[in-house]
C-alpha cells in the first residue's frame, strides 16, 4: 500500500502527467529528468512526520501554478529554474553552515579549505546552468543566491572576504562573545 501523496513514484507520475501534456517525446524525456530531481527534493523537504502530506500538497500547488497553462518551452524553463533554485538552496545552506563553523572555531582553516573548494566546484557548475536560463528574472534571483554561496565558499578557501549574511553572523557572534 502506498501513500499517493508522499510515495515517490506515485507523486512523480502525478507531476509528470500534468507537466508533460502536449510535449514531444524528447521534451517529455527532458522534463521527466528534471521532475525526478525536483520530486526527490520535495520528499526530502517534506520529511517523514505527520505534516509531510501537507508540505507536498503545498509544493504541488505552487508547482502547478508555475506551469499551468504555459507553453512547452516556458514549462521546461520554469521547472529547470525550480530545480536549479533547489540546488542553490542546498549549496547555500552548506556554505553558510561551513562559514559559521569557521567563525565559531568549530573547524580549522586546514579542514575548511578543501571543503570550500569542493563546494566551489559545485557552485561553478551550477553557475553555468543558471546562465543558460532564458528568464532574466530567474537568472538574477538565482545568481544573487549563488554569489552569496560563492563568497562563503571563498571565505572557507581564502579566509578573507565573506558574504553579507555571514558578516551579520560574525558580528552577532562577536557581540555575544563580548557580552
Amino acid at each position: 500500500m502506498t501513500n499517493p501523496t508522499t510515495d515517490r513514484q506515485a507523486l512523480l507520475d502525478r507531476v509528470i502527467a500534468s507537466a508533460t501534456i502536449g510535449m514531444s517525446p524528447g521534451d517529455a524525456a527532458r522534463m521527466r529528468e528534471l521532475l525526478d530531481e525536483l520530486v526527490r527534493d520535495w520528499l526530502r523537504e517534506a520529511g517523514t512526520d505527520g505534516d509531510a502530506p501537507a508540505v507536498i500538497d503545498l509544493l504541488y500547488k505552487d508547482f502547478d501554478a508555475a506551469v499551468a497553462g504555459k507553453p512547452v518551452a516556458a514549462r521546461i524553463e520554469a521547472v529547470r529554474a525550480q530545480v536549479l533554485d533547489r540546488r542553490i538552496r542546498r549549496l547555500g545552506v552548506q556554505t553558510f553552515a561551513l562559514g559559521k563553523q569557521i567563525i565559531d572555531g568549530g573547524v580549522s582553516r586546514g579542514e575548511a579549505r578543501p571543503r570550500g573548494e569542493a563546494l566551489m566546484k559545485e557552485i561553478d557548475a551550477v553557475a553555468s546552468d543558471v546562465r543558460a536560463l532564458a528568464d532574466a528574472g530567474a537568472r538574477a534571483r538565482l545568481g544573487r543566491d549563488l554569489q552569496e554561496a560563492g563568497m562563503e565558499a571563498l571565505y572557507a578557501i581564502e579566509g578573507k572576504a565573506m558574504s553579507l549574511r555571514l558578516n551579520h553572523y560574525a558580528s552577532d557572534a562577536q557581540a555575544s562573545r563580548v557580552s
Partner: protein
Amino acid sequence: MRSSVEGEMNEVDRRKGAEGAAGTAAGGAGGQVAVGKRTLVDSAQTGTSPAAAGPSAEVGKTGRAGAPDVDVGGAPHVEGAGSTGGPLTKEKAKQVLQDAFGTYKTMSEGKVELLEQADFQKAYDKIYGSTDYSWAKWVVPTYGNLNGFAEGGTNYINKAMANTGTVPHEMLHNNAASDWTPFVGSQFDEGSTDVLKQFALKKAGLTSPNSYPDQISCVETFLATGVTQEQLFTAYLKGGADKIVGEHVDKTCAGSWSDVKNAMEAKDWARAKVKLAKKTK
C-alpha cells in the same frame, strides 16, 4: 543594457583605496564584454546609470580550469526600480528609517560602504586580485558582477547593483536587537528585515522590490497567526524575540518554533509555512 541584480546593499561615503587592484574599470564599469550574451546579474532593478553596468571580461580567458565564459548584458529589464531613483544615500535611508521606527529606537548607520562599480572592483581586488579568485579570473566568468561582500566587519556594496531598498535593508540589520538574529536565525531575519524595509519605504512614499520573497512569505504566514506588525517591530528593534516569536509559535502554530527555524534555515519554505499554520484544536 546595464547589469543588475536584486540584492541588499548599502550606502557609503568613503572610497576604498585601490592600490594593487587588478580591476578593469573603465568609466565606472569595466570594458570588454560580449554584448548580447547572458550574465547571472542582468535583471535591472536599480535605476543606476547604464555606464555603471558590468565588469569587463575577455570571453573564454578565465584563470581557472572549468570556469565558464563570461556573458554580460543583453537581457531585458525585470523591474524598473529606477522609477524611485536608485539607491538611497545613507542620510536619506537613515531618515526614512528614523521616521518609521524612531519611536522604537534611534536608528544608526553601521559599517557599510556603497561603492561605484570601478571602486567596488578595486576594493574586491585589493583582497583577491593576486589570487585565482580575482575579479577578472573568477567574478566575471562565474557571475558577471557582484552585489556585495564583507571584509573586516564592513559591508562593501556595489552601487551599480543596488536599488531603493538596499541601503535601508542593510541599515536595518545594523539596528536589530542583540537577541534578534541569534534567536530567529538568518532566514527569518532576512524576511523580517524586508518587511520592515517595505513598511518604512511605503511610509516615505517610496517603492522597492522584495529582496527575499520566500522569506517574506514565511514571515507573513507568521504574522497571520495573530502577531501584529508592531510586535514584530518591537522584537526586531528592541528585543524579546523569544517571547514574541518563539513562545507565540510554540503556543499557536502547528509546529514548534524550533521546527520553523530549522525549516527556514534549510530554506525549506513550504515546510516552514506548514509548521506555521495555526494549530487546530
